[in-house]
């Protein structure tokens, strides 16, 4: 994070404070004396905006909206982003705990080694919720080729062979599960049926 981003993060954090009284301002001024002007200005600005009368009906002319929308659409990534990217180390362990699944199973999802069609809907919803990603985006990610095949393309001079995916059922049959993990999977399967 560069200096500007770090400064902006302090300002954002200040605006997120539930109480912006003298005590809060004191704390931020003590921790960030170099940002005194900015913090005082924001304090003043927020009070002004909170007292601003409602402006219900007015629509503001926005001639650049079409261009802005096209720019946003063009920023769409070509491949679906990895919903597991933010979960490294301890956070990956926490993710597994949230899902109540063993790490080997979540790693298999992460590496796209499981046939997406066989993953129960409830589990897909939980994967989406726990990774803060839309369910459709998780589905698109899991439907891409396994990551092991993708990485081999860069590490080896020879053409990678197709990696066989396993079904969700095969995956759980070949994994040692605790009682809680077994219960969780039963809940994910709903009526005992996988997709």
């Amino acid at each position, binding site marked *: 994070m560069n200096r500007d981003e770090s400064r902006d993060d302090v300002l954002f*954090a200040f605006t997120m404070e539930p109480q912006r009284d003298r005590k809060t301002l004191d704390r931020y001024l003590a921790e960030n004396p170099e940002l*005194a*002007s900015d913090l005082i200005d*924001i304090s003043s600005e927020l009070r002004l905006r909170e007292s601003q009368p409602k402006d219900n009906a007015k*629509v503001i002319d*926005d001639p650049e909206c079409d261009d802005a929308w096209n720019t946003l659409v063009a920023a769409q990534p070509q491949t679906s982003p990895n919903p597991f990217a933010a979960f490294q180390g301890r956070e990956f362990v926490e993710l597994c705990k949230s899902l109540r699944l063993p790490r080997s199973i979540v790693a298999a999802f992460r590496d796209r080694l499981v046939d997406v069609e066989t993953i129960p809907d409830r589990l897909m*919803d939980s994967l989406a*919720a726990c990774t803060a990603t*839309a369910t459709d985006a998780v589905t698109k990610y899991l439907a891409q080729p396994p990551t092991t095949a993708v990485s081999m393309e860069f590490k080896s001079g020879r053409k990678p062979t197709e990696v066989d995916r396993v079904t969700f059922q095969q995956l759980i049959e070949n994994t040692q599960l605790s009682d809680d993990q077994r219960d969780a999977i039963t809940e994910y399967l709903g009526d005992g049926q996988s997709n």
Partner: protein
Amino acid sequence: MTEKDLVSLSTSVPPLRKKTAGGKPYVRRSEVQAELLSLSSNTIDEIADQSMILDQDDENYLSSESILHFVRQSKANGDSSAYETLFRQLRQRLFKATPVREKQISGSQVTADPYQEEVRSRVVDKFMELLCEDRNEYRERLDYFEINFNNAIAALRQTARRNTSEREKREYAEPLLLYESQQFDDDGFNVLQNLNEPSKTEPGHYRFEVLSAINDLPDDERHVIELLIQGYLLREAAEIVGCTEKTARHRRNRARIALAEVLGREDLI
């Protein structure tokens, strides 16, 4: 909806990823979380229609935080016309959070404050940059806007103001007559301290006028006045802004005259 209900249903709305400096995850305000949950069974077309309600007193009026939430979802769910509608409404909210004052120049002719226009333009550009980055890779900084949209915009405005010339601002502000020789005592400025407590001040529109006039003061005067509103003593304010108490008093006095003149309020002197 109770807190318990919110917790039990919270998994159907993706949590935010941004964490506080202390490592604690930020969470949406309970009213925003409840609104998102109540919308979870609606189609995106219904939500887009709802976003077009402009009356803030309408029970179906959508928060800016929710509109942003759905615009962010468009990256995974396609770019249908419903998402475009949400995007248009989001820009309207962005504009309303960065108001530009208009000044009457002659008859019915008005002109927009170029300084505030420049600030708005910078805020819009920065926000759009964040949205575009978020399409490629989750941008945690955008989470601030899902927590409190208007307040996060205030932080962006501050950065934009810092980067926009103070000279432009002063050129547009109302000319203020200064009575440098006027003497003041240190008491009797309670009207400003009361501004920190809306219940103690006059009707809302007048409070806004007073605060707007303060906002128009030169930076050095506004900083002293803001600290006095917060309840700091003049000596403490001087220390924070890095000047002598005498200088702080001078700034305060100039501000008092300017405010009294703009607002026609003798009690500010």
